[in-house]
């Protein structure tokens, strides 16, 4: 039978785990947006060397599984660099750099999807490269980028569960911990899944509505 008391008795642990999950989600999305903006612009650069660097970054992080990146940066990187890297830093940096690559792709695709005639028109009016980007390209690109940005951020929240592999005490880690001493995996993991659903279903619905809005925008 489903024993709800396991959840209520260990609610503080789950709550702590949820806070850690949210902390990592929000901080790595914020950092990842900065990284993605920089790398995305690099990918759009007319300079071939800078463009290639952006491309290499994106392909590097898109083609290594996140779990491998996490384990590598926590267990292998310290040996390479002869430094101590805490699990919080390893987790924070891995997740930020990882999602940065995906945000960079969203930015690149968003900007490249803009009709080249828009750039022609802005250029012909005498706008500088910066003015073209700020006044004409980005305002149009951001509209296209919002739905995939929200979608990728939702995936990021789910991806934080991989932090438990390097023993960061996130929601899933606390769930495993509770289940290890209560022997009630069914109740605990159902609760963990339920918490994700409650948070992410409204966000997904929001992303869907934004897609519809985007369709009507132009």
């Amino acid at each position, binding site marked *: 039978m489903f024993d709800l008391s396991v959840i209520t008795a260990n609610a503080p642990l789950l709550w702590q785990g949820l806070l850690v999950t949210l902390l990592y989600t929000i901080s790595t999305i914020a950092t990842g947006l900065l990284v993605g903006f920089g790398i995305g612009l690099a990918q759009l650069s007319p300079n071939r060397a800078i463009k290639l660097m952006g491309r290499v970054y994106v392909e590097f992080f898109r083609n290594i599984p996140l779990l491998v990146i996490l384990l590598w940066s926590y267990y292998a990187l310290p040996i390479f660099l002869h430094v101590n890297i805490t699990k919080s830093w390893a987790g924070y940096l891995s997740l930020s750099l990882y999602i940065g690559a995906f945000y960079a792709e969203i930015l690149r695709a968003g900007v490249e999807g803009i*009709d080249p*005639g*828009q750039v*022609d*028109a*802005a*250029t*012909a*009016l*005498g*706008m*500088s*490269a910066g*003015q073209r980007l700020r*006044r*004409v390209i980005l*305002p*149009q690109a951001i*509209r296209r980028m919002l739905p995939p940005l929200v979608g990728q951020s939702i995936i990021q929240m789910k991806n934080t569960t991989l932090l438990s592999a390097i023993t960061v005490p996130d929601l899933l880690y606390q769930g495993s911990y509770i289940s290890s001493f209560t022997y009630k995996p069914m109740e605990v993991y159902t609760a963990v899944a339920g918490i994700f659903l409650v948070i992410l279903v409204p966000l997904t619905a929001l992303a869907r509505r934004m897609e519809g809005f985007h369709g009507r925008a*132009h």
Partner: protein
Amino acid sequence: MGAPTETCILAIENLHLCYGPRQILRGVDLFVRQGEVVVLLGASGSGKTSLLRSINLLAQPQSGRIVIGGEPIFDRADDGTDRLRLPAKHIERIRARTGMVFQQFNLFPHMSVLRNVTEAPVIVGQIPREKAEQEALALLTQLGLETHAGKRPAQLSGGQQQRVAIARALAMKPAVMLFDEPTSALDPELVGEVLRAMVALARSGMTMVVVTHELGLAFEIADRVVFLDGGKIVAAGPPAEILLSPSHPRVAAFVARFHESVDMLKPFLEAV
């Protein structure tokens, strides 16, 4: 022709342009005087749009010289050596002295009609917004668009959008207006309103370089018709002279095709 570069509002000398291995312009000379309307004609692929886009450096030529209003914007030797080395800021300032109207209008879809017209004067020309809006409304009124100022481009017809694009280009008070097939993307019934706006502009004394397939427009507004073939100017002169008694075989063939389509229409016209 042969007008000295200094007295021309636009001077193009020995312009060469290629896309990769394809040679598009092979030594074009074109001098446009203040208030003159030049219509560029030619088959597709003859280089007329490339020539137009070279004037404000939307296309990057390999060599030659371009002077706008007495200021050189481009000057490269035959080996491609840049004799000007203009900073981007400088190029942008000279470029703003030309106004361009595109085949696909290219209005900014995220801005109102008014904002489309005021954006460049405000952020490039550094004119106070209020003054720019007054001037923009005057331009829109002149083009019969005053009731559309608050709308988005997508709410307008193609003909209206193209007239907004003309207003947007005029708002920068250009010394010369460049038109790149401005009616080619329009439904036939919307061509007239854009042509009328261009005729009015030509009559007002605006210097214009126009790429078009509308031979009627060429007759109506051109002081000079320039015919391009294979990246070179093969004929130039008053429209009546060039189009009615073409001496160059390619011009003759071009005009003959126009006659053909008129001939095909004849039964319909006679039936009406």
